[in-house]
């Protein structure tokens, strides 16, 4: 649990660095997110006049939900202590709960931008979640489980070969992950142009430690998604069950490597395309949903593909 | 069988003929004459039956038929036509020709219906019933095919005649007298009603002027 907490900002920093480099800027150091967090934590909170108790408690809850969800994902070893407390569906639901609270918090102060952000967020989520669940469905059908560690084990085993449905699922998963984490082309984490904001619009009224919590939660979520993808589709070097320390180090290294690669790729990807109009997002996500459904159907029709 | 049967049969047949003549009439007075004729024929046949069955009470029925149906009712109707100044010609719904054909068809139908009756019911009754049935149907046809109140009353009287014919034709039928009396009362009511409510043209509206608006519940 602590590990993901520490690693998350680093990943964010890495991505920013990559993007800056691609823009021929030197960019801030990869450690910048940590500094930001410390600075924000130190600041006082400015609350809008009619912010309610919900507005004040939401950041901690959001953070907690995301953190618990993240700690259910095997990072470099499947033998997590509590992996059986929740499966993939539960993880998605936890993230959904976080989003639910975030959207409510966005509407709490009663500004129009909060409303924009919330309504767009739920619209995107209403398509992303089903797609995600379809992906899980197809994975579960292949691996015969919704338990991440079990899926990972299955993927490592020779029983899992290359499958069409797996490829489809991967694509869908990536798209959903991008949408969920409010990255380009769905949303731009760096924008402050009001009308294009989704995520940023919801957190507009936050400041100080609350903002810090939310930022941290966001980067946690990103990390979670990446490590989920890693442990499902690229479970190389994942440590199965308990074994000696050496293996763990290997796994750790592999995990770090995966993160670095994913982060770089994401950065490049975000640089290479432009943000979409809000109402073209549904088409993208609908496509993802269709892909995932197709994957599932293929499996249902014949469990060979 | 023999003569008795023939006479009864002939009389009944003549009554059917009279019924068809009613359908043929398109003026009021002749219609009333035909009605009187039919009633007279009824009286005759009832009398004949009384003679055959040696049932004196049937003579009463015959008398009722003669006096009330053959004499009084036509007279009253005639008087009414005169008093209310009802048009002398009858407006018919479908026209005389088709009505006649319909009448024929009805006669055929009643014969057809009565045909399968086993012979054990004696032939007099059998024939009489067939003819009586056709008279009843013709009467109904007259009622529904004429727009004129008086002729509708006449149609009802024809029905009455048919029923009386059937009743008297049935040998030893009890309560014949009572029933014919009761029926005559009914007829009288109708006639009085027509007269009382000043029904000029048709049954439909009791007073043309006041009631054409009202038909159950028109807005």
């Amino acid at each position, binding site marked *: 649990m602590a590990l993901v907490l520490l690693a998350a900002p680093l990943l964010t920093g890495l991505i920013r660095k990559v993007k800056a480099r691609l823009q021929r800027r030197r960019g801030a150091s990869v450690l910048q997110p940590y500094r930001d967090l410390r600075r924000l934590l130190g600041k006082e909170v400015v609350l809008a006049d009619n912010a309610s108790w919900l507005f004040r408690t939401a950041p901690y809850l959001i953070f907690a939900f995301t953190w618990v969800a993240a700690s259910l994902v095997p990072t470099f070893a499947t033998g997590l202590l509590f992996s059986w407390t929740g*499966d993939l569906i539960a993880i998605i*639901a936890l993230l959904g709960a976080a989003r*639910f609270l975030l959207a*409510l918090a966005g509407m709490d102060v009663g*500004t129009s931008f909060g409303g924009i952000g919330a309504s767009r967020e739920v619209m995107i989520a209403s398509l992303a979640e089903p797609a*995600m669940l379809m992906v899980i469905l197809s994975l579960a059908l292949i691996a015969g489980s919704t338990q991440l560690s079990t899926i990972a084990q299955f993927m490592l085993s020779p029983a899992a070969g290359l499958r069409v449905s797996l490829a489809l699922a991967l694509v869908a998963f990536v798209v959903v992950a991008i949408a969920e984490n409010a990255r380009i082309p769905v949303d731009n984490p760096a924008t402050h142009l009001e009308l294009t904001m989704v995520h940023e619009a919801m957190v507009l009224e936050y400041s100080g430690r609350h903002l810090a919590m939310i930022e941290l939660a966001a980067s946690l979520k990103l990390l979670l998604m990446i490590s989920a993808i890693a442990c499902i589709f690229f479970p190389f070097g994942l440590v199965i069950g308990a074994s000696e320390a050496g293996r763990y180090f290997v796994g750790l290294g592999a995990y770090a490597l995966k993160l670095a690669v994913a982060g770089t790729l994401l950065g490049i990807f975000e640089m290479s395309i432009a943000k979409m109009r809000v109402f073209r997002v549904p088409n993208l996500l609908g496509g993802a949903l269709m892909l995932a459904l197709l994957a599932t159907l293929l499996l249902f029709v014949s469990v060979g593909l | 069988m023999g003569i008795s049967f023939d006479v009864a049969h002939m009389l009944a047949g003549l009554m059917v003929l009279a019924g068809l003549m009613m359908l043929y009439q398109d003026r009021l007075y002749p219609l009333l004459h035909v009605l009187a004729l039919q009633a007279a024929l009824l009286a005759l046949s009832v009398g004949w039956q009384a003679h055959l069955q040696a049932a004196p009470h049937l003579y009463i029925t015959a008398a009722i038929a003669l006096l009330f149906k053959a004499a009084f009712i036509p007279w009253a109707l005639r008087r009414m036509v005169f008093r209310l100044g009802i048009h002398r010609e009858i407006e018919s719904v479908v026209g005389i020709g088709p009505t006649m054909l319909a009448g024929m068809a009805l006669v055929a139908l009643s014969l057809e219906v009565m045909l399968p009756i086993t012979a054990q019911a004696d032939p007099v009754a059998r024939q009489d019933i067939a003819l009586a049935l056709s008279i009843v149907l013709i009467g109904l046809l007259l009622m529904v095919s004429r727009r004129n109140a008086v002729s509708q009353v006449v149609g009802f009287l024809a029905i009455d005649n048919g029923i009386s014919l059937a009743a008297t034709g049935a040998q030893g039928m009890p309560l014949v007298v009572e029933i014919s009396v009761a029926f005559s009362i009914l007829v009288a009511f109708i006639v009085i009603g027509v007269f009382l409510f000043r029904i000029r043209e048709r049954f439909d509206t009791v007073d043309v002027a006041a009631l054409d608006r009202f*038909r159950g519940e028109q807005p």
Partner: protein
Amino acid sequence: MIVALLICIVGLLGLGIAGVALALRPLGRAVVYGGAAGLCAVIGLLALVALGRPPSTIVLPLGLPWVGAHLRLDALSSFFAFVVGVGGAGASVYALGYSRHQEAPQRVLPFYPVFLAGLFLVLLADDAFTFLFSWELMSLASWALVVSHHREGDNTRAGYIYLLMAAFSGLTLLLGFGLLAGATGGYAFEAMRAAHPSAGVAALVLALALLGAGSKAGLVPLHAWLPLAHPAAPSHVSALMSGVMTKVAVYAFVRIVFDLLGLPSWWSAVVVLALGGITAVLGVLYALMQHDLKRLLAYHTVENIGIIFIGLGLAMAFRANGFAIGAALALTAALFHVFNHAVFKSLLFFGAGAVLSATGERDMEHLGGLIHRMRLSSFAFLIGCAAISALPPLNGFVSEWLTFQAILLRPGLPQWGLKIMIPADGALLALAAALAAACFVKAYGVTYLGRPRTAAAANATEVDRWSLGAMMGFATLCLLAGIFPGVMIDALAPVSQALLGARMPAQLVLPWLSIIPVAASRSSYNGLLIFTFLAASTWLTAWAIHRFASRAVRRGAAWDCGFPDPGPATQYTADSFAQPIRRVFGTVVFRTHETVVMPPPGDLAPARIEKSSRDLVWETFYAPVARAVTATADTLNQVQFLTIRRYLAFVFLALVALLLALALWQ
């Protein structure tokens, strides 16, 4: 056991009479609602006790003389009786406070307990006559409650449509039972169980059961009455109708299909699955388009009924393929959701009622900012929203999670229809869940958050203790059922054992109280740990931050990207909140389209946006029937205005026709 239940039910009927007597006294409310609460609680407990016991039956010399009134309390009926008891008790407690603001109590008090009695009687009935008798009694009493505010809006029309649909459902069920009973009239359920209907008859009965029970439960497209009738009633009655009465309809379906009929055929499962999926998604989409709080909730009832029927359909599919364990899992999921929905839907309606009595408004567009003035009830409502949106660690999530597990269970079903239908239902279920979350963000955000849009909302005050007590109690239930799902699942075991001959593995023996539907390797969930983690980490972070980092707070105007405060009117409304989703889904489902009217440059007139949408279900299924009836009535009505001669002509023609028929027949 059953005798005790009967005594309680008779007590409820007695309360109805008391309601007539005391209607206009203040005492009446206390007696009726207090008594109802007590009796419902007792019945609920008794039912809980009876859940494990063998069925107990009794025959009363009532109803059809040569059949008598058969009553039976088996696992299924006692589970539902428990649900109804819980809902009824909560609603009655809530009503103790809520009904203070009721005008015309004499229109509510006599019928409320009778309604409850009807609900319970349906569950106990063990022969067709008693069943339908109680069924219609339930409908009738609830109709009287729906029209209790008969002078407001078009409540009377709502009541009319409601009772008409109720009669429809009653008659269809009657036909179904007639088919099961056969010409000899074996109306007792025992006889029906014994008689094994042929395939065709079974299919017909199933169709009739779907029509009858479905129209009562609110399956699309038979749901049209529901969003009209449920909001029209007083809120505690709405809670009963939405949370409990629809469940009784589900009970009727389960009773007929799983108990009275034999093995279902696989395609019937396909039909049920399809209906369930469509209902779930359409229901929530309709809900998203609403801005009347209670109507929104009513539409969500439709959605949840869809979810329940998906579970039932899965159970039928597995059962048809002789896969008992899967059937048990699916059925348990469905019944679990029955309980959950009863709880949180009642809670939500209580909340809506609280808003109504505090502000006199049901329209969300006139509300806002209530969270400041109605702290406790807003908290309870939030729990309800989270629960119905299937968010962990609350109960809604568990039942939907179980349903998903059931969907994942068996890809290998032989029939193509199921191969396609089951994953499709998975997608629909997921879609419905996500949309539900969206819808409740809207409902809560617009109603309770933001700034008050009207004076009524600004001057709202917290509701009375009784109402709060009821709401808090149900909120706690939501949490408990989410944290200890194992208890519920094990409680449901006898039901599936009795109906399917199989049950889910016992859960309470597992370590850490986690639940494992089939096998630990497949999937497991532990609400308790999730909850502990959440609580711990929240508290930990909050403590750490307040301890080591700053804890200073300053109040100021909202930032809002530096715009000067433009007033509450600029907040997002319910309508505008739903606009993106309307654009994504509505164009297909509701034929919505929006037109923006821009004034020419230099003109100071405001720009206007107009949106139009159509209710296709109504236009397809209901409007034509209404038109047909009207047209026929008009045509036939001319017969009223004929002349006597024509009437005579009718007689004449009838006579001739019959004689002809006779002549031909001979």
